[in-house]
């Protein structure tokens, strides 16, 4: 069993006690300590900024041309915090409870409680930085509601919350760059971790402009490199999002936690054809006001607006009257798949359901506006006009984006949506201090596994990224570095750096010398198809076993037949992609193994063999109340370590949103 180093004492006192007793590094010593931060999304930018402010010498790395591009920027709907500004019964405990329950009782209580505690500080910090959250006319902050909760605790900035939070963190980061506390390396990609005497001491990265390999030393290394949803090829992730930094760390001894826990987001724009390069999310916040339905009749080819009210099946409201359209993501996704598989899907591919705003546009917003303006007995047209104005303010950018992509106007016709890969709850295993199983190597944000169990609630990813970066790592890192103040920077001529760089160089040379026939992209697409069909929204033993064999064959073929044009010593996006896809292929195999091992359903992991009579996910707490932490042993060879999950505060039950 793994030691997660959870502090003793009552749950609600653990973090406070920890902070009160943790070892400190004095300001003079902080200046002598170098910290490497890989990735500059919400977790990385906030960590780099916060550590720079404390006086550490920080080096931050991103593969994009600027830290402001990291994919946190694309988060739309909002960020949760237990502020209870709405007086609707929210509290730290409620946020903690909702998150544990939403995660289907596969998250660690102590981490989640800490997350709920610091959530309130995040909002304060962001407001102080000038993040322009939505406000009421009185000048105070506004909230909206999200899936899996019955309170309004989500702070937002139209449909661009991630952008505004990231710009806040980016500006804090650039301020530290200007002050000389952070050195920024953009267009750099980490390709190896350097471990010396069992401790993470640096990285090897490729300068993506010149193609040169560089060695960088750090007293500690923080991976904030995001999730691995792109293993499915099609996902809502950015094109460059990848697992490479985390995978290199995994192969150097960091355990991989719950790799099979993938979030399939219910409301994305459906696939149109083989040319598709990525999928676009339509924010969960739309489920506040959109009603999801399919026709009651199979293969109904009428246009959506021609189908009368009583011939529509609002299946979420029917199946889950208490939460309705706001059930958690895993539940909503499976319900959409169930309807489409049963033949009720809509659109040309029949792999879509409707998300319809008309009802709330008229009855909620239109009527409220009419009342406000004193219009008695407004006609339908007036209600639509008034409602449209409000909806535009709330979701304008999302509606525009939908129209650009599909050519349809969602104010007039319902959106067509289908589930798509969105987030990975799994990630590098970390202890309470966010340290991986390699000393001095930390994982923050989506890169780690710790807070969302088997399913993440909406608006919680932004919360976790910033919690880890602004409020957790500044304390826990000091606890480790306090014992390292006498360690002088290790010269990068050290043999461990030599060896690490050599292995990277050899791998790149091998890749370039294959000179095969098939493009990197074609391998990535094939991997994605295997993963989506056999390790996607529903999984079973036979399919997973087949997938493992297919992936092993794909891997062999990749290393024999991939074609990478261009040279090593120059900018070469195909080579960068090949490095990433090679790692995705290995990860895909591990995900299938993990999904096979976990013969239960929980959250986003749905094993067809394990479901209730009503088709809900059926957990087996007696056998699977643990975190799977996979230890890399060699090619296609892993050892399973387990961290037992102990629930002191909450009693796990069958999740019920009915």
């Amino acid at each position, binding site marked *: 069993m793994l030691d997660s180093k959870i502090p003793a004492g009552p749950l609600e006192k653990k973090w406070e006690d920890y902070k009160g007793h943790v070892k400190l590094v004095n300001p003079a010593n902080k200046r002598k300590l170098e910290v490497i931060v890989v990735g500059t999304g919400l977790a990385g930018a906030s960590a780099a900024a916060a550590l720079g402010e404390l006086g550490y010498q920080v080096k931050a790395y991103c593969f994009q*041309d600027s830290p*402001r591009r990291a994919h946190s920027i694309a988060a739309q709907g909002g960020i949760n915090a237990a502020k209870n500004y709405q007086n609707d019964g929210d509290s730290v405990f409620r946020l903690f409870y909702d998150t544990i329950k939403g995660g289907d009782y596969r998250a660690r209580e102590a981490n989640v409680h800490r997350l709920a505690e610091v959530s309130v500080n995040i909002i304060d910090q962001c*407001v102080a930085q000038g993040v322009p959250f939505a406000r009421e006319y009185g000048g105070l902050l506004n909230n909206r509601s999200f899936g899996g909760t019955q309170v309004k605790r989500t702070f937002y900035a139209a449909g661009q919350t991630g*952008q505004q939070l990231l710009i806040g963190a980016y500006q804090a980061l650039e301020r530290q760059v200007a002050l000389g506390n952070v050195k920024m390396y953009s267009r750099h990609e980490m390709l190896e971790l350097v471990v010396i005497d069992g401790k993470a001491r640096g990285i090897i990265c490729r300068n993506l402009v010149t193609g040169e390999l560089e060695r960088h030393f750090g007293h500690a290394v923080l991976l904030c490199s995001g999730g691995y949803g792109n293993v499915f090829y099609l996902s809502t992730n950015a094109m460059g999002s990848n697992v490479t930094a985390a995978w290199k760390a995994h192969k150097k001894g960091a355990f991989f936690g719950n790799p099979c826990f993938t979030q399939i987001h219910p409301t994305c724009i459906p696939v149109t054809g083989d040319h598709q390069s990525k999928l676009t999310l339509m924010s969960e916040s739309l489920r506040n006001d959109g009603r999801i339905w399919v026709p009651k009749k199979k293969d109904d080819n009428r246009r959506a607006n021609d189908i009368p009210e009583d011939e529509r099946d609002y299946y979420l409201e029917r199946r889950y009257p208490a939460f309705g359209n706001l059930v958690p993501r895993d539940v909503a996704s499976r319900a959409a798949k169930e309807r489409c598989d049963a033949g009720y899907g809509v659109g040309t591919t029949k792999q879509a359901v409707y998300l319809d705003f008309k009802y709330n546009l008229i009855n909620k917003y239109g009527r409220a506006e009419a009342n406000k303006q004193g219009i008695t007995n407004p006609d339908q047209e007036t209600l639509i006009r008034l409602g449209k104005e409000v909806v535009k303010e709330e979701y304008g950018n999302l509606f525009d984006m939908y129209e650009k992509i599909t050519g349809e106007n969602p104010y007039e016709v319902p959106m067509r949506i289908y589930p798509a890969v969105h987030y990975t709850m799994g990630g590098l295993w970390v202890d309470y201090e966010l340290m991986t199983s390699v000393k001095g190597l930390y994982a923050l944000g989506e890169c780690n596994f710790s807070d969302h169990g088997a399913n993440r609630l909406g608006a919680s990813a932004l919360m976790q990224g910033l919690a880890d970066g602004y409020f957790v790592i500044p304390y826990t890192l000091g606890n480790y570095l306090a014992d390292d103040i006498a360690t002088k920077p290790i010269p990068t001529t050290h043999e461990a750096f030599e060896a690490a760089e050599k292995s990277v160089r050899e791998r790149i040379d091998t890749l370039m010398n294959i000179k095969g026939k098939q493009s990197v992209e074609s391998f990535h697409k094939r991997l994605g198809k295997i993963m989506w069909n056999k390790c996607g929204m529903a999984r079973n033993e036979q399919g997973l076993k087949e997938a493992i064999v297919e992936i092993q064959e794909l891997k062999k073929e990749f290393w024999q037949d991939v074609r990478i044009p261009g040279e090593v010593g120059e900018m070469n996006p195909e080579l960068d992609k090949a490095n990433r896809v090679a790692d995705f292929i290995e990860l895909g195999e591990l995900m299938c193994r993990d999904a096979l091992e976990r013969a239960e359903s929980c959250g986003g992991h749905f094993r067809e063999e394990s479901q209730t009579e009503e088709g809900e996910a059926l957990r087996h707490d007696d056998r699977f109340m643990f975190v799977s932490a996979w230890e890399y042993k060699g090619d296609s060879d892993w050892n399973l370590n387990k961290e037992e999950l102990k629930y002191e505060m909450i009693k796990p039950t069958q999740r019920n949103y009915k």
Partner: protein
Amino acid sequence: MEHYNMNLTLKVWKQKNKDTRGSFETFHVKDISSEMSFLEMFDVLNEQLIEEGKEPIAFDHDCREGICGMCSMYINGRPHGPWHGTTTCQLHMRAFKDGDTIVVEPWRANAFPVLKDLMVDRDAFDRIIQAGGFISVNTGNAQDGNSIPIEKEKADQAFAAAACIGCGACVAACKNSSAMLFVSAKVSHLALLPQGDPEKKTRVLNMIAQMDKEGFGACTNTGACEAVCPKEISLDNIARLNKEYLSAAAVIDK
């Protein structure tokens, strides 16, 4: 939505690196679906080039949902192409018809050197932010988020300015390669909020000084920047910046 396929001729800027001269090359693509995005059309072209044993065209892109600001193609003489308020990645092939010839160039500005083909170096934007595009608040000492009410109208205006994605289309569109729209969006965002007030004078002066140092041109109020901005950042921000600059310059002795 009706969809159709098309054959296209592409004239694309190819350049090996910063130090070499570039030139246009002509390519042909077939059976492009009107449902594809512009970048997916480039994916098809690149796969075709790899198949033929040639080097694919390098271009910047990441989120492909119009928010990261990385994509940056100058299409038929207009940054991000023909659609109003749209990034290159959100431009869809419905905008074109069978037989069209499309000319694609990188952003052209002294402050944005070409790295390869259609990729440019926009580090200058980061350095402008470093000069003052922030509020100096350390982590952990913020007061309650609701302790300072902010007029909804001002908050909304600040948000509209903060929606800038830093793509650089404004610079590419400007005959002077001015970065005024970019700088003014940040100055406005922070000047409109009470949190940004204490530093507003030094901020505007330092950011403008850095802009000049990077080699961006001056603003002559032509408005080409606003016309092409994918996030529809308003010229009003430039007016606000000028006001902020004048009042700061009048009282600060630098």
